[in-house]
């Protein structure tokens, strides 16, 4: 199938290094944020989420940081592995039915 995100921003990291992927969100009323990982030819996969009453949340090898002052979200991946190569995108919700998805960043992991 055709690749998703042919013109996406790209981040290239060395295996074992930490990766930081950034996202600027648009709606000041958004109170719930999610990071997804999408591998080629597959559907988006939930990674981690955070609510607006938090600044930081940690998962397994991943950390999400939320800065509401500047409407910025970041995903940190520790000890990046080749299997982390994918498109990552953020999503925001204000509690309504519609979720706004970012365009995504393509992560390449060099062995």
């Amino acid at each position: 199938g055709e690749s998703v995100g042919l013109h996406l921003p790209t981040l290239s990291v060395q295996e074992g290094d930490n990766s930081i992927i950034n996202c600027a969100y648009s709606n000041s009323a958004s109170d719930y944020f999610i990071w997804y990982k999408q591998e080629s030819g597959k559907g988006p996969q939930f990674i981690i989420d955070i609510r607006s009453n938090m600044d930081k949340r940690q998962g397994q090898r991943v950390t999400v940081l939320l800065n509401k002052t500047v409407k910025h979200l970041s995903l940190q991946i520790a000890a990046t592995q080749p299997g982390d190569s994918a498109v990552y995108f953020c999503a925001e919700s204000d509690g309504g039915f519609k979720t706004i998805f970012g365009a995504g960043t393509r992560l390449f992991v060099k062995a």
Partner: protein
Amino acid sequence: DVKVTQSSRYLVKRTGEKVFLECVQDMDHENMFWYRQDPGLGLRLIYFSYDVKMKEKGDIPEGYSVSREKKERFSLILESASTNQTSMYLCATRTGHSGNTIYFGEGSWLTVV
């Protein structure tokens, strides 16, 4: 784990054909969604449903319709397929509580020739 199953992964259809994309979820979620994903355009919402037999238009409903006869099943219908509907179609589901995570299926690649 949430399972969202799209029965057709790859389809090739002719212009003017009627196309059905089926989606089934096993988590008893109230909300179901259909998105299309195109390079450079990201995810765009076509239709969503918040209950059986209920449907709401999303951002790009033209040329599409949906059906939700049972809670677990949400179908996307292309009444008369056109080449500009060639895309990846993603079904998704979410619990009825707003703000919760949307879970996606694996996607259906549709090519209209």
